[in-house]
């Protein structure tokens, strides 16, 4: 009667299988290594920006097309915070750099979370359980949010330079791995661990899933589902804010549209993962990251469709995604 179900290893094997399958096609081991490490790290970044959506869309069943706004917001907040800590970011010391990034991340998460609170209240609450209206109203929220960002920060793109010590790459033989991607792997792993712990070791995950199916019954059992949903939504938004910081730093600039641009991508990741599964989302993100790099190297034209092809292939194999948590 352990809390952990027996792990289904097949989807996890997909990642190494894909990587190994690409090796002969690519030929040069150092190129392969560069692409693979970059792809995995990219997957981690994608996982971070998608992690909030796992909660909001995967578990709470809210088709939040406005998720991107929180991503953009996080990134913009980071530009402001980092700009005010100029000396820390330009210093050539990793520790000082990280000391600047940490508050940037925390403030971004706090602001995105706070906006999430408002968003839940005004936009999501009337439409729980109604997909179509969720799409519309959150799209509306997205447009409003994007425009408000323009009102506050202006319509231009704003540079978000990487702190000094995180620029460039480390060399492993002939293969180069960007330093920043290594940081992303660490952050991604931390997010993953935190989510897995919370969802599997507490009743939160169960309650959300139950609440989506039958709110009234959960309330009849004595849980304040409303408060819980608010909390989870806020957490999801805060994670999106964190994702925005990571994504903005990766792009090294931020635009008001940046959230909208990753919208489809993160939906694909969540769907590949099977709605609501943290592990699934991670695997989905890693696959997307690898696939983009391999096809981008081998046949760039196809790279355009690689995500979609990947999703379709996975859905043909497992029509509910790799780790369906919910039966939706």
């Amino acid at each position: 009667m352990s809390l952990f179900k027996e792990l289904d290893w097949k989807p996890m094997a997909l990642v190494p299988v894909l990587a190994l399958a690409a090796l002969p096609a690519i030929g040069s081991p150092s190129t392969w290594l560069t692409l693979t490490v970059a792809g995995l790290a990219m997957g981690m970044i994608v996982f971070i920006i998608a992690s909030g959506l796992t909660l909001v869309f995967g578990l709470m069943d809210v088709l939040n097309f406005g998720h991107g706004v929180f991503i953009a917001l996080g990134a913009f907040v980071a530009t402001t915070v980092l700009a005010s800590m100029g000396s820390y970011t330009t210093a050539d010391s990793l520790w000082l750099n990280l000391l600047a990034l940490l508050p940037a991340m925390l403030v971004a998460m706090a602001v995105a979370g706070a906006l999430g609170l408002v968003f839940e209240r005004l936009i999501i609450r009337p439409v729980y359980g109604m997909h179509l209206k969720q799409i519309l109203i959150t799209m509306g929220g997205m447009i409003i949010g994007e425009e408000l960002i323009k009102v506050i920060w202006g319509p231009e793109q704003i540079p978000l330079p990487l702190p000094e010590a995180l620029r460039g790459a480390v060399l492993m033989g002939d293969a180069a791995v960007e330093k920043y991607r290594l940081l992303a792997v660490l952050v991604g792993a931390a997010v993953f661990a935190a989510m897995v712990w919370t969802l599997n070791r507490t009743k939160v995950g169960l309650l959300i899933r139950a609440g989506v199916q039958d709110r009234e019954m959960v309330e009849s059992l004595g849980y304040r589902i409303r408060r819980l949903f608010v909390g989870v939504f806020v957490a999801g938004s805060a994670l999106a804010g964190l994702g925005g910081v990571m994504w903005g730093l990766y792009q090294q600039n931020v635009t008001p549209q940046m959230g909208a641009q990753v919208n489809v991508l993160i939906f694909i990741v969540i769907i590949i993962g099977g709605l609501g599964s943290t592990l699934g989302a991670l695997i989905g993100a890693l696959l997307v990251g690898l696939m983009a790099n391999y096809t981008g190297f081998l046949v760039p034209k196809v790279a355009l469709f690689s995500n979609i092809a990947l999703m379709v292939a996975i859905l043909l194999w497992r029509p509910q995604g790799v780790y369906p948590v919910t039966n939706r």
Partner: protein
Amino acid sequence: MSEVLLKLEQVHTHIGAYHILHGVDLVVPKGELTMLLGRNGAGKTTTLRTIMGLWHASQGTVVLDGQDITQKPTPDIAHSGVAYVPESMGIFSDLSVRENMLLAARGARTLDDIDTTRLEWIFGLFPAMKKFWTHPAGKLSGGQKQMLAVSRAIVEPRKLLLIDEPSKGLAPAIIQNMIEAFRQLKAAQTTILLVEQNFNFARQLGDTVAVMDDGRVVHSGSMAELAADESMQSRLLGLSLGAHQ
């Protein structure tokens, strides 16, 4: 004679534009089992939902243990010690039986926190629960779902149980188990308000009885009295002599 645990006074409930309950008066004595009977559409389910706060009364008061709960939110009502088995059972079909039970045990963070003797007691009543412990609840048979719904309500001790037609879909042997279970609960000072169509079942268990029709309570009294008076049964419940139960 005994104390009153739950009291409804002149409760009116609307669903949307429809006026469903027209002034329900109901008294549920503490530690007893009260039967709520009535034809289809009489308003029994609506009454339970109103008590639970799932629909709010537009007029009148619901008092639980001296506290006015008329306008309280559902979770608060549940916290004051009420468990509810809805007519549609309210099974979380995505979740396993185990997870359904874990959620019902509000005090428990993990399964280990659940009182094992109580769990064993439930398994004894409804062996299927043990057998399908890790199965998705949505895949259970109709009767098994009903068992799960009742099991959830009794996994922890509660002051008051509101149960809507627990016997439907259950095999006779299980119904007997359930009757036994309710007796034991009653002995443990749990008050029960039970909606039932199965008169046989009702007769075996009920201490007091209230009969509803058209959104009102049209009769209340002791079960023994109603069980003995067949003409009253047929008048109130449309029960003809020797009817099928």
